[in-house]
């Protein structure tokens, strides 16, 4: 019985090390997002990061939107 508990215990620890929890993955994604938001290009001039606000600004000003699509979850 003690041996079985030991084996199960090792498996549980092993799985928790091998498989990051969903919240750990989300934390990593949030960290990567924060890093991307600190990109120099975003600081030089005013960028909308919110699509709906960009549309509202374009509708108000009559200007076209220059839209740049990028990602933070991978290089």
């Amino acid at each position, binding site marked *: 019985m003690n041996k079985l508990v030991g084996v199960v215990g090792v498996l549980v620890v092993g799985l928790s090390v091998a498989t990051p929890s969903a919240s750990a993955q*989300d934390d990593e*994604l*949030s960290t*990567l*997002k924060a890093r*991307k*938001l600190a*990109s*120099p*290009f*975003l600081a*030089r*001039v*005013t*960028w*909308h*990061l*919110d*699509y709906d606000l*960009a*549309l509202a*600004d*374009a*509708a108000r*000003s*009559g*200007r*076209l*939107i*220059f*839209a*740049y*699509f*990028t*990602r*933070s*979850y991978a290089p």
Partner: protein
Amino acid sequence: MLATKEFTDWSAGYVLFAHITTQVPGDKHQDLLAQKGGNGFPHLVMLEPSGMVVAQLEGDRDVAGFAAMATKGQAKAAEIKKLIDAAAGGDKAAQVALFKVRLEVGSFATVADARKEFDALADADKAALEQPLYDFSVRLRLGQLTSQEDALAAGKEFAEAIRAGKSFKGDTGTAQGYWSLAVNYAKSVKDVVVAERCIAAITELFGDNENAQRFVKQLTDEVATWKAEKK
């Protein structure tokens, strides 16, 4: 380039929008890239004020390339504005033309949204819009692939349409993805009919390209093997 003074000076006449696909749960508009016709990063387009794509970057990723894109975008935006105004005034032909443009320029977030408006059209108008609606559904499907398994599932959907006599008829970039996934599925189940239709389409679209010629030759040989196995 986007952090340069040259870009800062040029961009003053435009609304700047940076969309970051983060995959963080809860973040808004995570499918926006696919909606706006993109399937890779970076993706640069001009949008008119209601969100329709009016130009895509075709040249270099520099101010000259951006300026050329913006010029094209201004012209397309002016065309769209005329259609919007005419459609709002009750012009039926303009309403149909505007729906077609909206399918092409990423105005619908989902196929269901587009189909809802499509279903409200007169039957005579629907006939001319079936193909643009299908092309739109393919672009969106390709832009939202999540895994290899999903790619195979998409290939199966495309293969079923191809069997039924329907296929993608839009831009060559999307066509490459469409026919590739259909071929992958056809190979996985040794579907001779679909494979032969893919061969015909790829030859017609990309027959001048040496890589495509090699690909077609290989696939043709494979299909011959499948046929021999079935005898």
